[in-house]
């Protein structure tokens, strides 16, 4: 066929008996060849022992999540020649997702992912009247638009596999669960708001805003955005954990500082977040590294502070 090009696919293989090894396959592809098709041809034409998951081939089922040239991606949504072009090499590496336990080759155990999703009660809890068929709860178009983006998750696991916070903090639910959780937290038809707050708020303050989930999501769900939006509900939670409490104090201090001066005055934000003792400790560290002179700078206020206040909705 015209415009065919040979590629080398380096697959990180694994099984319980042999452990891990790299294996190379050569094949010809054209500009329409998806990575799922690449794997299918390797399996049917060259090596029936290669194990991977794929089903719909159209970014709907979420089965074919893996790392391609180091990027967490859906294989079906990745054209082989796009990778060749982006990285300037006809060698494409394929590895299983990080974080999850490996089963065989590119197949990982998704149990950890599913348990995260079930923790946030991923379904609508409608009112009794609606359940009994006595009422109908309509969704306004603007509410639907707010929820739509966050509803598109296909449970592929890419965001969790790439998230640095889930690796260091077992109390963080992870990006996908937060997107799902917020999608119901903000749904006006749902009836378990208080319970959802308890599940989601503490965890939301454990995200580090690295934007990895936003970057890798094949459905543009933006889990990090839902985490930000969930934090805004902290004020409605009666009993807050220390993490949520500190976080809320920190953002209140930032908002107040911007409202008053148009800028973040580090010293006052520090004091309000950590208290006098906590701030002093960090000040000592700054001093030891020769940075104290900068800690005492008071940044000039925005001259047109009235304009800032108006933009902040006053």
């Amino acid at each position: 066929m015209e415009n065919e090009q040979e590629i080398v696919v380096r697959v990180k293989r694994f099984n319980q008996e042999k452990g891990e090894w790299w294996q190379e396959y050569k094949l010809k592809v054209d500009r329409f060849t998806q990575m799922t098709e690449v794997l299918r041809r390797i399996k049917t034409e060259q090596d029936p022992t290669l194990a991977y998951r794929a089903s719909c081939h159209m970014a709907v089922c979420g089965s074919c999540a893996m790392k391609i040239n180091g990027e967490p991606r859906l294989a079906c949504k990745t054209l082989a020649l796009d990778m060749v072009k982006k990285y300037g090499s006809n060698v494409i590496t394929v590895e299983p997702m990080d974080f999850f336990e490996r089963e065989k080759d590119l197949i990982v155990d998704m149990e950890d992912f599913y348990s995260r999703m079930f923790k946030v009660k991923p379904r609508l809890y409608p009112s009794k009247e609606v359940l009994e068929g006595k009422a109908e709860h309509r969704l306004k178009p603007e509410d639907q638009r707010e929820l739509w983006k966050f509803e598109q998750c296909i449970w592929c696991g890419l965001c969790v596999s790439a998230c640095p916070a889930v690796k260091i903090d077992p109390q963080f639910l992870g990006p996908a669960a937060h997107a799902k959780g917020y999608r119901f937290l903000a749904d006006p038809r749902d009836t378990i708001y208080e319970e959802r707050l308890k599940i989601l708020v503490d965890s939301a303050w454990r995200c580090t805003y690295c934007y990895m989930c936003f970057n890798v999501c094949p459905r543009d769900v933006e889990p990090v955005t839902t985490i930000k939006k969930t934090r805004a509900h902290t004020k409605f939670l009666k009993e807050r954990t220390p993490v949520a409490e500190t976080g809320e104090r920190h953002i209140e201090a930032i908002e107040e500082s911007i409202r008053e001066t148009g800028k973040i005055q580090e010293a006052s934000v520090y004091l309000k977040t950590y208290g006098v003792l906590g701030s002093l400790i960090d000040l000592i560290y700054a001093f030891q590294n020769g940075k104290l002179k900068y800690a005492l700078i008071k940044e000039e206020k925005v001259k047109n502070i009235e304009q800032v206040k108006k933009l902040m909705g006053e």
Partner: protein
Amino acid sequence: MTNNVKIAYYPGCATHGLSKDVDIATKKVAEVLGIELVEVEDWNCCGGGFLDERDEVTHTALNLRNLSNVEKMGLQKMVTPCSVCLQSHRLASNKYHENRDLRKEVDKRLKEAKVEYSGKATAEHIVWVLVRDVGLEKIKSFVKRPLTGLKVGAYYGCQMLRPEQVMGFESAFKPHSLEDLISATGATPVTFPMRTACCGFPLMGSNPKGGLRLAYNVLDSAKSSGADILVHPCSLCHLQLDVIQLKVKNEFNVNWTLPAIYVTQLLGLAFGFSPEELGISKLAQKVLKEKGFA
């Protein structure tokens, strides 16, 4: 890039606060390269990566005010040394263009506050301007003191790279702008596994233990890969990895440090400025002295 190009400069709060040395070094390096950095008139805070969690409309409106001031200055490019300020402005203008419900609310506020934004002014990172507009060859031509033998870890962090679809300058998974700049100074770039992982700064306001763990992971990864010093592109990474580096050291009870300096501080050194002139921290000065660059 021809000489004396004028670019709007947005330092941001940290760059004018605890990361003041980032500001000092960036201005010195820009001057050498013939870039006139004109501070954005009466700029306000971008929200520090946090304000949008409070209110997206407020966050977007405040970021557009800065971009509007850039347009009023007759300029279109606003450059910042801070990855968080960069991402904040880019996300804000992106959301403003894409989300019509949000735009409606933001427009009300802009009108009320008499802020006009045409959509033309955009935020860029100083690293992008250096690599793409100034060019590595021109940078090399200003090197007076090649940093030969210094092994410099290239640390990207998060927000200069991600989300790739909004930042768009280079691959979020295989970036090389910092390695290119490090090589231009004559130093040896060290590419280490955790180079695009988070430094943990955004966790310091809610879960500091987690934040310090992330910082440690980055430093440990670079140290194990043989770096003498770390270079980064962000005023908030600077707070985490430079200003409170000793806190990380004590928290994890380790007997080593890996000083982190801002990318223009590294360029400044190669251009012949002394570490003191560039406001470089004591820890980094010690390493530079040992290696014979101070």
